[in-house]
């Protein structure tokens, strides 16, 4: 099977050095903010959850799913982490995935880390979380509502993250392709990838909420507290001997 992968990862040299630098600085500032906020969300018990979500996104990014014959895409995971661990920890998780991919697997350029983190970690996660927040009333009503929310959030997150790519290309793209071509190509392909992303995100969130609703960040504070009820005092017949 021949697959022409259209990855969102940018390579070195796709945008010029000043643009890489600017987006590197943007990514760094936002990440520091996220780290500060993430510390409040994480304790010794939830840090492993963040590690697992990160590993999961890492693993799932390697699964390519077919869009059209000959073209396939992979999950970005922005909406998934936003719903499961929240936007602050989620951004840090995706940024770590991108860092390790760049350092160990030569996936995405080292100088493109700033632009990649801006697109997939920052824009992706916060867009996904924003959509999920808007739909929170639906999400909290039922399991089906949460699954639908996950689908919409993942779809929007993928398309908007690809707009980040278009923005960076517009600012400092080093190629000669017209902006319109790049825009149509990126948004068109990512609308298709977004459907796959939505399906997988919805399925994952659905599976988690069915078994462990306590792990879903978006549902925090909705758990009905345990009510202690004493059993009606019926004397057991011949029980206590």
């Amino acid at each position, binding site marked *: 099977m021949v697959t*022409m*992968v*259209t*990855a969102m990862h940018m*390579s*070195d*040299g*796709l945008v010029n*050095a000043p643009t890489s630098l600017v987006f590197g600085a943007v990514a760094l500032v936002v990440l520091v903010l996220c*780290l500060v906020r*993430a*510390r409040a969300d*994480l304790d010794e018990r939830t*840090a*492993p959850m*963040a*590690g*697992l979500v*990160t*590993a*999961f996104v*890492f693993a*799932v990014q390697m*699964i390519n*799913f*077919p*869009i*059209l014959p000959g073209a396939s895409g992979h999950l970005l995971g922005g909406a998934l982490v936003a719903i499961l661990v929240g936007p602050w920890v989620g951004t*840090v998780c995706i940024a*770590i995935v991108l860092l*390790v991919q*760049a*350092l*160990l*697997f*030569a*996936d995405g*350029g*080292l*100088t*493109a880390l700033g632009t990649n983190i801006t697109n997939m970690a920052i824009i992706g996660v916060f867009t996904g979380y924003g959509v999920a927040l808007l739909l929170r009333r639906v999400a909290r009503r039922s399991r089906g509502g949460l699954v639908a929310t996950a689908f919409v959030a993942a779809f929007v997150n993928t398309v908007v993250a690809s707009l980040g790519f278009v923005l960076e290309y517009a600012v400092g793209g*080093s*190629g*000669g*392709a*017209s902006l319109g*071509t790049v825009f149509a*190509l990126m948004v068109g392909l990512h609308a298709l990838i977004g*459907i*796959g992303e939505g*399906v*997988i995100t*919805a*399925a*994952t*969130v659905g*599976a*988690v909420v069915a*078994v*462990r609703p306590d792990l879903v960040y978006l549902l925090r504070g909705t758990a009905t507290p345990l009510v202690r009820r004493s059993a009606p005092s019926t004397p057991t017949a011949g029980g206590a001997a």
Partner: protein
Amino acid sequence: MGAGHAHPLHLHRDSPVHRLPPQVKIVAAFLGVVCVVATPREAFAVFAGYLVLLVGVWVAARIPVGWILRRSVIELPFVVLAVLLPITGPDPRIDWLGMSLSEPGLLGAWNILVKGTLGVLTSLTLAATTPMRDLLVGLQRLHAPALVTTIATLMLRYIDVIAGEARRMRLARVARGHDPRFLWQAGATARGIGALFVRSYERGERVHLAMLSRGWSGAMPVLAENRTTRRDWAAGLAPVAVAAALAVTGWVIA
């Protein structure tokens, strides 16, 4: 199950490059790529110079050139855009083999291709000479926030858990005739991924409890207290100095 010690792009050898402290290699690789990206695209000879420099590092690290070239096909997906540039780019156009190609487009494609390739080759060199664990130690010594190294450490531990679980589930699907080709067949994969997450989480929870009971406190224990000397930094940054000189040459001649 090998617990996260090796990764597919690591080449286990003993060489001066392998022995360099990881933080030196991370900084050197990063600065090297910065030099490449900052080089003007018309300085064609300078890019050949970068390649010679990389080959020199590979010789010092005892990495076979063929080994690294085979792995550099990892780059292919990223340069898809580059193929389009000469066809869709603006005027002036030149004719080549009966095709009308855009000159700025060709230059743009060359730029992405050469810088992307040199970047991938640099990352591959770093990955080939640095095991995962050392990389985390390197990030720690570069003063990455503790939260980042903790999550990254746990992530690398859990990758094997997830990969093992995914392999078993995929085998089970394939054994039942699963062969997805189109979007509407993604359902089984999607449901599988949901199940994979819950199964991995529950195994991960047990792994975490096992780690806690063995005294894990959030940071990996330091096994060897190797001091990083000035000589290490000098050795690691020597190729970067050459790269910087090449970049300056590029600016002068372009």
